[in-house]
């Protein structure tokens, strides 16, 4: 392929490394608890908060919700912050663009919005079930896990990317096209 060389991902990545270090240091000093970057537990807490509004008893009796705590916490605000930061950055860089079906998907499945919605929904269910079983996502296991040289991070990342490569190639690679 012919992706133009750019320092951009390396610089943004290195700065993310500095942000991760600063986050752990500052949270240790201020909160007495190290906050490593992560995102997927927020989906558990958010799902619990939504369920709570319909069936509070059910949530209160669920062992998993109890172990994670159904509340707005550091990480949930962190995920909200990602939304705000990315929004402002995309506006300033003129990168903001409405998109209902991404190009690679369109090339393979056409421009049907309901089909893309169904795929993203189904993929989301499977992915989050997997992330919770694995104990984290590419942020918690990937970034934070590998920074700490944790075995679980390497195992999970191998699963994430290995299965990702396999499924993506089965799903999106059309006979001889694009090569």
């Amino acid at each position, binding site marked *: *392929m012919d992706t*133009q060389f750019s320092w951009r*991902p390396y610089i943004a*990545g*290195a700065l993310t*490394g*500095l*942000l*991760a*270090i600063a986050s*752990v240091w500052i949270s240790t000093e*201020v909160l007495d608890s190290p*906050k490593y*970057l*992560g995102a997927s537990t927020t989906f*558990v807490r958010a*799902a619990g908060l939504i369920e709570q509004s319909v069936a509070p008893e059910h949530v209160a009796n*669920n*062992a*998993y919700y109890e172990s994670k705590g159904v509340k707005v916490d*550091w990480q949930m*605000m962190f*995920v909200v*912050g*990602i939304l705000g930061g*990315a929004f402002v950055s995309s506006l300033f*860089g003129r990168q903001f663009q409405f*998109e*209902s079906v991404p*190009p*690679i998907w369109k090339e393979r499945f056409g421009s049907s919005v309901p089909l*893309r919605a169904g795929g*993203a929904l189904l993929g*989301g269910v*499977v*992915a*989050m*079930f*997997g*992330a919770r079983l*694995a*104990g984290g*996502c*590419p*942020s918690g*296991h990937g*970034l*934070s896990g*590998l920074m700490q040289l944790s*075995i679980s991070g390497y195992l999970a990342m191998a*699963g*994430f990317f*290995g*299965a990702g*490569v*396999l*499924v*993506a*190639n089965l799903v*999106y690679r059309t006979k001889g096209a694009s090569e």
Partner: protein
Amino acid sequence: MNWELILGLGTGILFGVLLQQGRVLRFEKQVGAMLFRDMTIFKFMLSAIIVGMVGVNLLVGLGVISLKVKGTLIAANLIGGVLFGAGWAIMGFCPGTSAGAVAEGRWHAIWAILGMLGGAALYAEVYPMLTDNVLALGNLGKITLPEMLGVSPWLLIPILSAGFIGMFYVFEKNSI
């Protein structure tokens, strides 16, 4: 808002800016890596990991911070990892980037977010059935690579960093 929430929000805003500036939020970038067409997300991630590995281990060595390692449960890490990877390929976002993708105007990431909320709720229901089997299989505890090998992290950090930089070289040589 207390300090915990303010710090979370501030860290998230900066992370959102860096994810967006690194151009890693899009479906094309995530699926592009799985198709070996565009390795931007790995350039970003591995750069962060090289810097983070050095800084985190330095501060741990100085006694300023402590590690917070996730438990190694071989079966759960691998099976969960594979399920995540399969779903990731179809939705084209990961949990952290999905929020940023919506913010960039890629509003179809909302379906992914709704799906992920459903997946989290489903896992909460199934969890009690998994604790005695999958989640108990191959439990090595909260262990790191240097601990397992019985070596200093400072022996592994240069080796891993060199490996990651070697990957950057391969990516750039192939213009991916």
